[in-house]
């Protein structure tokens, strides 16, 4: 009989366990984002003015931990707990999209002091005005979908 927990036959989680798993990862991440103050508009201002090491330390050490674990996964061809092989994303080879799209994103990051993750964390933390920022970001993505064939990639 299949119930809301994990499916014991295949090891794949049922819908409730699947949802709990990813909501849980998100809650962990959101909690860390707020407690490290990287969701703060002021911290982003410090970063872009080179007035504090905080953001550089956070991003640098996060990348270092990610790099070591990704290296281990590749080196030992590790699999997920469900036995799936772990593949890495292959990005499109063109360069303009990364530099141009990245620069526009950077302008938005500096103005709002928030990237997509922190926008959700801030809404949860009670700064509900950021729902407007989120709606504008969704509109930005929708607009990109409409005009993308005219842009260099």
């Amino acid at each position, binding site marked *: 009989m299949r119930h809301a927990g994990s499916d014991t036959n295949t090891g794949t989680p049922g819908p409730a366990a699947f949802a709990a798993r990813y909501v849980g990862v998100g809650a962990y991440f959101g909690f860390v984002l707020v407690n490290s*103050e990287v969701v703060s508009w002021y911290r982003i201002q410090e970063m872009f003015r080179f007035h504090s090491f905080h953001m550089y330390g956070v991003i640098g050490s996060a*990348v270092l931990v*990610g790099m070591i674990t990704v290296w281990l996964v590749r080196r030992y061809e590790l699999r997920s707990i469900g036995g799936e092989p772990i593949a890495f994303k292959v990005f499109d080879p063109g360069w303009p999209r990364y530099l141009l*799209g990245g620069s526009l994103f950077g*302008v938005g990051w500096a103005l709002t002091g928030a990237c*997509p993750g922190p926008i959700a964390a801030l809404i949860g933390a009670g700064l509900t*005005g950021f729902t407007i920022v989120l709606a504008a970001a969704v509109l930005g993505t929708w607009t990109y979908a409409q005009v993308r064939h005219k842009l260099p990639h």
Partner: protein
Amino acid sequence: MELILAALRGPWPWYVAGPLIGLTVPLLLFLGSKRFGLSSNLRHMCAVLPSRNSYLRYDWRREGGWNLLMYAGIALGGLLAGVLLADPAPVEVADSTAVALARAGLEVDGALAPQELFSWSSLFTVRGLTVMVLGGFLVGFGARWASGCTSGHAITGLAELQWQSLLAVAGFFIGGLLATHLLLPLVLAL
């Protein structure tokens, strides 16, 4: 007990926060071979709406269901850390940043984001509207053009040693520096 509560309230130094953020990458890989990157959610939210656009027509539940759940979880984590276990002390800001912002016409208020720019009532001010709507729009437009944001490029992509991500992060800083030093003073003067 009080020590634990104090630790949970934060704020945490970079050498605690950074590694904990970095661990999200292997956590998602091991839980289900998922790649950490949050701006895809903006695309999934568009894909929920009916559309004939080929970029937005795909099975968002299958591709992005897990990521949308994670995104909702981030708001929950924000609620836990920012409301239930909120740190009562004002958010730290470097003195030099506070001075520069004051010169541009914005006083540091100790909140996570200046209420003068991001409260509901600031929607009716030109500078609040500009920062929230133009800024948010560019976050969504730029992240999808660059096919990633801070999480997908600056953390996961750099951890994977992808040159495209290094280029995107260079772009983040070009745009961020221009906006901070040239655009923001103009917007704050509005």
